[in-house]
């Protein structure tokens, strides 16, 4: 059997989701953002809810997410995505409203909006990309930067006496009564991507079933900011990020424990 016999439309088992358009993404080679964009697109297509989805893009590397997924998007000021999501959800309660934010957006300038949006408990979904660094602006220290991790603004490693401790904001959000589902996932292997997809699906289902705020943290790599190759960045993340940000469900009050 030749390759031409295998490559036929009826044998197709995996392809880029249709709502992800052909525009080349501006992300660095190997960036986790692309995988998460793809997962969102796949889940929306599987749920057949593309026409009823409103996404909110952050400020950060993912600021141009509206260029790559063909759904309705709003652009929020830096850190204000959850506030905007709550407003949109209250005006259009039947829409699936989600924010897509990085750690500088969600855990630094947007801390107040994030915490109060989660406390108000409107059914929005927050996709939180945590790579421990400010990627877009050139790799400065973020609140989530690990202890001892070197960045452009802490070249000798993060000193907790000077810079404080890594902010585990997802653990804070777990404690709020407005959140119904808080999970931490990763996209570094095929198995992890499948798990993350289940988590995003569950979060989106909570959204349309009006159950409360769902937070999906994706522990990600920033190989440019970390100054590593994509494969080395994945190894570094497993060794260093996962002990500080352990994967798994932190909270699930929806009564449906299918997504593990």
């Amino acid at each position, binding site marked *: 059997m030749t390759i031409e016999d295998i*490559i036929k439309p009826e044998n197709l088992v995996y392809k880029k989701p249709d709502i992800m358009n052909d525009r080349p993404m501006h992300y660095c080679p190997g960036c986790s953002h692309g995988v998460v964009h793809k997962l969102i697109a796949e889940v929306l297509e599987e749920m057949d809810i593309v026409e009823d989805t409103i996404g909110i893009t952050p400020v950060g590397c993912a600021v141009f997410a509206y260029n790559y997924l063909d759904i309705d998007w709003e652009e929020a000021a830096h850190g204000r995505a959850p506030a905007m999501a709550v407003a949109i959800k209250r005006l259009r309660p039947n829409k699936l409203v989600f924010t897509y934010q990085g750690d500088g957006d969600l855990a630094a300038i947007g801390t107040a909006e994030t915490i109060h949006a989660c406390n108000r408990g409107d059914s929005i979904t927050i996709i939180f990309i945590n790579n421990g660094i400010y990627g877009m602006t050139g790799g400065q220290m973020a609140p989530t930067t690990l202890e001892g991790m070197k960045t452009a603004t802490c070249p000798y490693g993060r000193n907790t006496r000077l810079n404080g401790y890594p902010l585990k904001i997802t653990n804070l959000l777990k404690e709020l009564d407005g959140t119904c589902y808080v999970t931490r996932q990763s996209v570094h292997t095929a198995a992890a991507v499948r798990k993350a997809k289940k988590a995003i699906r569950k979060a989106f289902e909570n959204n349309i079933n009006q159950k409360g705020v769902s937070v999906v943290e994706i522990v990600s790599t920033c190989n440019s900011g970390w100054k590593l*190759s994509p494969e080395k960045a994945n190894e570094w993340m497993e060794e260093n990020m996962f002990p500080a940000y352990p994967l798994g469900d932190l909270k699930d009050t929806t009564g449906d424990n299918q997504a593990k």
Partner: protein
Amino acid sequence: MAKIKGAIVVNKERCKGCRLCVVACPAKVIAMSKQVNSKGYNYAQMANEDACVGCASCGIVCPDGCISVYKVKVD
């Protein structure tokens, strides 16, 4: 015994040569090309065609959605 055969098609122009698919492939099918695409990246390609089982691990981890996976059962 039924055997599974797979094949991948890489969108060469979209590929940024990050090598994550090479690492993810359990059957060591994928290698980077010697040629470069119009952006100057060495793109992923099938080097060991017979070993592919169409598991789609490469496609799933590809950040840019460059890889389409085909799978067929042969008797």
